Structures are given as structure tokens and as C-alpha cells.
């Protein structure tokens, strides 16, 4: 625990140092990056130890915070989240050094590094706080730091808009969380987690709903996702990696913690989580397919994956309430494992997208192409990450989803609610998987394969060595975590026990080691067979020299890059089919003459929920709020009077 505190101190100190070195960008970079990497190494150790021993590590400092104590609690659940925090922020910092270099002189790099390390520190605080006040402190610090980072390129109107939406979402979420924690702590003297008295009935449901919305606004499942596809692409890429890889998981962590406070659960909570998750994973994958910008594709894919995690939690809750502990344990284990795996591959993918953005100056899919020739290593790592994101073996994305499937298939021995939940979960996973595969083959294909579609894309260069190192390390981790599924079960088991305390069900999770061992073996066989195929191919070729030619285009001898299938054409059959949901806006040429000369067409993926739900509702709220604008006029004295009046009113009410 002391090491975690040390890493917190390192993070905060290095962010101060980076800020003070603002004048000298390269030294500020060094201060920020070394701080982040050292803090990561420092923090990984205790987190790993807690996970493998299963013992909780607590530290209380004799410094009272209001309504409780300054207590840090590193239990296996917190440690399970801290491992990806440290892994991803450490590698992102390494990546960031190369990535931010080109901004030196134009942008305040010291401030960016300070915000980045503060963001990491805030996440550590969120995961280790054992007190609601401390938690909210970390939560708001996290929101503020990431807000600054979203505003990094504030000269772009899009970034300002994204940051504003993000701020609104964060503020609304925090208000709901304050309400949830006040309800939880209503009957207890302090807001320490350990002091929360169990709630029942409607009070418990109210806390559940408030926490679901409050944390959901951070986790970004549909329909609370509107800020995510705006804010994640706007931030610098290593920050997008951290935001999508692990920061949105703080919302999932919050939901798991609150579920822990609220036993016994009510069945409809599980159904709510299940349905929201299923909708998110299906729509997230579908929207990802329709986006035209690489980082937006990835942001929607994060919505899909958060949906999968939420759906697994819901499946587990429904099963647990209906007396199916084995099914519940497998679903929860799948959710946790997917949290870990998603942080690795989504971090990798955002870094890959960042490398593209850095090299080509744009991440618009229709302006890219052929980058695989110009940046071969980035292409390799990005393709590995895409395979993991599509849950394809032997990469790591498969293992977590597989555990969820196993849980869903336990339902064949049940009838009624668990059976229905199992079918919904399994089917949504399968359908979302197929859609995600379409989305990722499209994105990777349009960016990296074929011929460059623009001059600019043809002149790209390979990413810098530090960027390649970070991406390579993550790609390797994706492969290793995919092959080492059974080894991950031990830490998973202790995290599960500390989160939900299903002792009997832990046996089930251990039993799932058998299929996972088979899967690892089959994954190795796959690699071996691929190796054999490569060797055989080489043997057949012998010393024959393959000829080089043109791509076959139906006998046409002068194919041009513009004749390639583009990203929109690739997705068109599916996006047309799902048009009622996607509502993409298209402009198609109308042919009125006999010899039409030039024609152009365009499609645009619109933010369906933002445009058709949030904007009208927001306008209504704004109109309502204007009626009360006379309360707010900017005179400080009168604001202080409001506070005094409120305090007196509360005092009178208590008398």
C-alpha cells in the first residue's frame, strides 16, 4: 500500500515539476514521462501482490476528511483495476513523448503532462479510496484533468464543443453520485464504505438507479454515451488510449462497488443492466461501422465493449438472484476479464490511430489507404489489436467473451429467467461480434491496405521508436494474455471474491480453467499450423521468383486509387440495411441530362442520440432554466446571502 502511495506522490510531484518546466518543452516531457513510468512500476508491484495473495491492504492516515477517515483500501477488486491503470498509463507516457514532440513550442506541453499525470493519480485515488468523500475528490479531479486534455487542441471548434459536452456529462454524473452516496450514508455516521448500512426496498432501488446513471455517464453505455465519441477523438492520442482503455472503466468499477453495498439485489436491476448492455453492444458496433473517422470508430467500439461488460454484469445479477451461482460467477468473471483485455487492445488501437493521425495529418478513412507499406510496424500492431477487438483467437479479446458465453450456456440447465437472460446475452454477443468484425476490417482495410487515396497519405512515415515500443509492448501483451487465459483466473478469482463474495461459485471459475487450457492449446496449435503453412509455402516456392504485376481489375490496365472500394462503400450494404437505426444523412447525385459529367455523393454518420434525444430535451431544459435566470446575476454578496439563508433554513429545520 505504501508503494501505491509512493506512486501517487510521484505522479503529483512530477505533474507539478512538468508544470514548472513549461518553458522548456523537452524537459517538461522528460519530467512527466519519467514520473508516469516510475509511478507505474511502483504501483504494479503492490497491485500484483494483492491480486495473487488475495489479501486486502488497508492504510488509514490520521487525518480526518469530512464525514469519515482518510482511508485507502487496496482490495483485490481495486488491484484488478489498478493493474491496467498502471500498465496503460506507463506505456501511454512512453508513447506520448514521441507523439507530443511535434507540438513543442505550439502547445503548453508542461500543462498537458501535468494534466496527464494528475489524471492517473486521480484514477488511482478513485480505485483505492475507501470513503465516499475521498472517492468524489478523485472522481472530480479525474474529470477536471481529462477535461483539460480534451481541450488540448482548443483552437478547433470541434474540440471545444467536445469538451463542453464532456463537462456537462461529468457534472451531471457527479451530482447523481453525490445523491447516491448521501442516500447510502443516510443511516451511518460516516461515509466510509465499511460504515454503509444495508438498504432495502425503494431506497436501495433509488441508489441503484442514481449510481447507474451517475457511473453510466462515465462508462458511456447507450443512451448515456453522447460525450464519448466526441471527447475521446479530440484528446491527444495517448490520452484517448487512457480514456477509452481505463478511465471509462471507473464507471464500471463504481457500478460493481455499489452493487456490493446493495445486497440483496433485486431482479429487475439485473435485467436493466442486461438490456442496457445488450443495446449498447449492438448499437455501439453498428455505429462504429458507420463512422468516417478512425478515432470515432474506436470510440464507438469502446461503447460496444462497455456494453458487453455491462451485459455480463446483468447476466450475472439475474443468475445470482435466481439461484444460479455458477452461471453468475462465470458471467462476472467474464466481465472482469473483458475489462482487463479491453484496456490492452483499445489502448493499442488508439495509439495506432494516433500514429496514423500523426503521420498523415488526418484520421479520415476516405483520405487514407496504403499506410501498411509506409508504416509496416504500426500496421502490424494495429491489425493485431483489431483481431483482439473482434475477439478472435489467439488474441486476448476472446477469453473474456468466452467466459461470458460459458455463463450464458450454463442456462441450458435452467428454465425461466436465467434461460432467457442466457439466450439474450449469448445472441447479442454473437451479433455484436459479427458487426465488430465488419467495423474493424473496414477501418483497418481503409487506413492501412490498398493504395493511398490522397497525396498526403502517400507521403507518410513510420511512427517514432517510442511510439512503436509502446504499441509493440501492448500487441505482445494482447497475444500473451490471449494464450495465458488459465493463468489469469487466479487473480480474477480473488477480485471476484472481494467484489461479490460468491465463495461457492469460485469453484466454477476455477473449473473454467479446463476449457481455457484447451483454448490456449488450440491457440498454440493455430500458431504452429500457421508456421508450418509458411514453411511449406516457402518449400513449394523453392528458388522460383514470384512475379510482380498490377492488381487484377477485370482486364483494366490502369487502375487508380480512386477506383478502390472506400470505407463508405464497404459498409454500405450493412448501413443501408440498418438505416432506420443509423439515420445517416446522404446526398446522392440526381442524373437529369443524357451525358452527366461530374457527380458527387456524400454520406454522414450522424450522432443519432445526441441529435434526436439530447438536443430537444436540452433545449426544453434551457428554456425552463431561463425563467430562473434572475437568481443568477453574478453578484457575490447575494450568493453569500443565499448560502446563509440556506444554512439558517437547515438549522431551523433540524431544531
Amino acid at each position, binding site marked *: 500500500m505504501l508503494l501505491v502511495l509512493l506512486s501517487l506522490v510521484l505522479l503529483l510531484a512530477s505533474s507539478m515539476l512538468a508544470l514548472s518546466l513549461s518553458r522548456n518543452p523537452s524537459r517538461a516531457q522528460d519530467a512527466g514521462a519519467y514520473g508516469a513510468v516510475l509511478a507505474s512500476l511502483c504501483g504494479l508491484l503492490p497491485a500484483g501482490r494483492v491480486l495473487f495473495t488475495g489479501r486486502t491492504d488497508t492504510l488509514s492516515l490520521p487525518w480526518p476528511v469530512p464525514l469519515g477517515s482518510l482511508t485507502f483500501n487496496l482490495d483485490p477488486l481495486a488491484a484488478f483495476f489498478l493493474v491496467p491503470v498502471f500498465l496503460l498509463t506507463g506505456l501511454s507516457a512512453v508513447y506520448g513523448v514521441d507523439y507530443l514532440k511535434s507540438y513543442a513550442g505550439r502547445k503548453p506541453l508542461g500543462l498537458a503532462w501535468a494534466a496527464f499525470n494528475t489524471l492517473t493519480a486521480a484514477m488511482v485515488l478513485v480505485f483505492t479510496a475507501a470513503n465516499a468523500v475521498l472517492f468524489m475528490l478523485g472522481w472530480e479531479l479525474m474529470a477536471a484533468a481529462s477535461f483539460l486534455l480534451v481541450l488540448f487542441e482548443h483552437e478547433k471548434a470541434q474540440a471545444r464543443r467536445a469538451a463542453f459536452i464532456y463537462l456537462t456529462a461529468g457534472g451531471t454524473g457527479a451530482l447523481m453520485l453525490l445523491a447516491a452516496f448521501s442516500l447510502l450514508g443516510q443511516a451511518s455516521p460516516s461515509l466510509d464504505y465499511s460504515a454503509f448500512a444495508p438498504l432495502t426496498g425503494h431506497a436501495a432501488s433509488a441508489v441503484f438507479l442514481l449510481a447507474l446513471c451517475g457511473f453510466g455517464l462515465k462508462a458511456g453505455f447507450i443512451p448515456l454515451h453522447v460525450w464519448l465519441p466526441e471527447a475521446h477523438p479530440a484528446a491527444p492520442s495517448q490520452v484517448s488510449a487512457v480514456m477509452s482503455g481505463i478511465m471509462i472503466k471507473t464507471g464500471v468499477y463504481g457500478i460493481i462497488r455499489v452493487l456490493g453495498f446493495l445486497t440483496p439485489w433485486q431482479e429487475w436491476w439485473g435485467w436493466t443492466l442486461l438490456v442496457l448492455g445488450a443495446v449498447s453492444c449492438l448499437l455501439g458496433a453498428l455505429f462504429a461501422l458507420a463512422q468516417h473517422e478512425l478515432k470515432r470508430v474506436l470510440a464507438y467500439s469502446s461503447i460496444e465493449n462497455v456494453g458487453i461488460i455491462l451485459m455480463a454484469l446483468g447476466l450475472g445479477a439475474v443468475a445470482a438472484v435466481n439461484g444460479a451461482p455458477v452461471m453468475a460467477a462465470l458471467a462476472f468473471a467474464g466481465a472482469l476479464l473483458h475489462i482487463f483485455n479491453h484496456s490492452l487492445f483499445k489502448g493499442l488501437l488508439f495509439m495506432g490511430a494516433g500514429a496514423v493521425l500523426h503521420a498523415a495529418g488526418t484520421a479520415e478513412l476516405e483520405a487514407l489507404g496504403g499506410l501498411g507499406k509506409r508504416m509496416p510496424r504500426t500496421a502490424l500492431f494495429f491489425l493485431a489489436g483489431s483481431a483482439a477487438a473482434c475477439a478472435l483467437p489467439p488474441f486476448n479479446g476472446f477469453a473474456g467473451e*468466452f467466459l461470458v458465453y460459458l455463463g450464458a450456456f450454463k442456462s441450458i440447465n435452467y428454465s425461466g429467467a436465467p434461460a432467457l437472460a442466457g439466450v439474450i446475452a449469448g445472441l447479442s454477443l454473437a451479433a455484436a461480434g459479427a458487426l465488430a468484425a465488419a467495423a474493424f476490417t473496414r477501418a483497418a482495410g481503409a487506413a492501412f491496405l490498398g493504395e493511398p487515396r490522397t497525396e498526403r497519405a502517400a507521403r507518410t512515415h513510420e511512427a517514432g521508436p517510442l511510439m512503436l515500443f509502446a504499441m509493440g509492448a501492448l500487441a505482445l501483451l494482447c497475444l500473451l494474455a490471449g494464450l495465458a487465459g488459465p493463468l489469469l483466473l487466479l487473480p480474477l478469482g480473488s477480485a471476484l471474491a472481494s467484489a461479490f463474495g460468491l465463495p461457492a461459485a469460485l469453484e466454477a471459475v476455477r473449473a473454467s480453467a479446463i476449457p481455457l487450457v484447451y483454448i490456449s492449446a488450440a491457440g498454440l496449435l493455430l500458431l504452429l499450423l500457421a508456421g508450418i503453412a509458411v514453411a511449406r509455402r516457402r518449400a513449394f516456392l523453392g528458388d522460383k521468383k514470384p512475379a510482380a*504485376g498490377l492488381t487484377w481489375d477485370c482486364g483494366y490496365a490502369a487502375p487508380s486509387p480512386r477506383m*478502390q472500394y472506400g470505407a463508405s462503400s464497404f459498409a454500405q450494404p450493412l448501413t443501408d440495411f440498418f438505416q432506420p437505426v443509423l439515420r445517416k444523412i446522404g446526398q446522392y447525385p440526381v442524373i437529369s441530362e443524357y451525358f452527366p459529367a461530374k457527380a458527387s455523393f456524400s454520406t454522414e454518420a450522424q450522432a443519432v442520440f445526441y441529435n434526436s434525444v439530447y438536443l430537444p430535451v436540452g433545449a426544453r431544459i434551457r428554456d425552463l432554466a431561463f425563467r430562473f435566470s434572475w437568481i443568477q446575476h453574478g453578484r457575490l454578496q447575494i450568493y453569500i446571502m443565499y448560502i446563509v439563508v440556506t444554512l439558517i433554513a437547515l438549522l431551523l429545520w433540524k431544531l
Partner: protein
Amino acid sequence: MEIVKTLFQFLAAALLAPLLPGVINRVKAFFAGRRGQPLGQLYYDLFKLLLKTPVYSRTTTWVFKAGPIIGVASLVTALALLPFAGRPSFFAFEGDFIFLIYLLGLARFATVLAALDTGSAFEGMGASREMQFAVFAEPAFFLGLAALARVTGQPSLAGMFGALTGDTWRTAAPVLALLTASFFIVLLAENSRVPADDPNTHLELTMIHEAMVLDHSGPDLAFILYGASLKLWLFGALICSTVLPRHTGSWASDSALFLLMMFGVAAGVGIVESVIARLRLTKVPFMLITAFAFSALALIFQMGR
């Protein structure tokens, strides 16, 4: 002894798979009143292709060469999961059919990326259509297997097909019949047969699977063709194991019956291909949605029983 049997059935599948397209072609030739190719034509083709020197487009990268290799490796791995005549293969574990579906997904992923690597309009078109049909075929296939798991109460392929007996057909005939129909439709679509796709077409605009591999040649094309025959074998075996719950009791006669049935399925594909026309591309999703509906109905019947 057991391991020898497993090895034998694995090798039998791996070696006999290229016969299936031969059977289909002979049946089609019979309907057309021709003599047709020799049964073993694909073996000759594979042999010839392996010895040829490939041609690569200057646009392509390593992704193009990796496509056929990953494709064939994942299909051979899938074969190592596939029960043969109700008997488990090398790998049999809880949830193995999920792994199988994702292995097929990996093969598709690699093939599609290899197609996009050529920068050709036709191959992009084929790739786009392949991914589109997969979005409809995968849930149908998954739901069918889920229904089968529920009928037999077993969560693994070997368990399901080991537990299916003639008795199951007596008690749950509608469920199994629906599942067979659903699997057969998925087989036709996944293996690019009529009515979803026409393997014999020579017009690039209308091709799907063939369009994706237009640029492959030499050993690469041999890997692709062999992989395609393995995929056909895989889906055929699932249908055979559903329709023909074993069990004469002896492994030898079970296996012989199973093989016979495999060729029966191939003949069935040939008959379908001879008597019906290809669907318009925009109608193919609806065919797959029909398969999905069959699987869903089967599952509902089973849950209601």
C-alpha cells in the same frame, strides 16, 4: 488405441474434404446432362497450383500473403475440434463450438483483409458482401447451436452429438428438423454456394467469395481452395451429426455411415445448385434471416417443451 482412432478420423477428414466439391460438380453435371470433371479434380488443381509460381500485385503487402496462411491454419485447427460420427476429436471442451465459430471468424477476417490489400474494386466488393452476410449468418448459426445444446443438455460439440440418438428425433423431431434446415441454409451461404453466391460465375461484379481471391495465385490459391473444402466439410459434418444420430454401436460402421452421409450432403448441395437460381444480392440477407428464424423457432419450441 483411442488416440489412433482420433488421428485416423482427423486425417480422413483432412484428406477427404477436397472430394466434396468434386461430388457437387458431378451432381451438377448429371443434372446438366454432361459427364463433368473427374471426382478428384480439386486434388489435381491443388497439386498443380502448389507447383506454380505466384504473381503478386505491386500494391500488396505481407497482409496479402498472410491471408491464405491464417485462413488455412484456422480451418485445420477448427477441424481438430470437430467430432466425427459422434466421437470427439483432439479438442473437446465446454463451449468448444463458440471457439469454432470464432476460428471461422478469424479465417474470414484474414481473407477479407487480404482482399482489401489488393486495392481492387472487385475484391473490396467481395469483401464487403462477405462481411455483410456474416452479420446475418453468424447469429443464425450461433442460435442453432444454442438450441442444440439445449436439446441435448450438453455444452460441447462432442457432448451434443454424442447425446443425440434416434430417440431424440422421435421426441424432438420439429426442433431437429428446423435446426437442420437452418444449418443447411447457413452452409450454402458460408460456403458461397447457390443461391447466395455462384462459384461458377465468371463475372467479377456478381462474385462474392471468388471475387475476394481474384488476385491470389500459386500456393496461396491452393491454400485458399483447400481451406474452402475444409469449411464445406465442417458445416457438412455438423448437419450429418444432427440428422444422423449414430449409433450402430461399432465405430467402423458409424464412420462409414457418416462418410456416406457427408457425400449425401454434398449431393444435396449439388441438387440445390442445379434446380434453383441464384438470389439477387439484396435478397440474400432475407434468406439468412429465414435461417435465423428457423433457429429461433427451434429454440423456442425447445424452451417450451
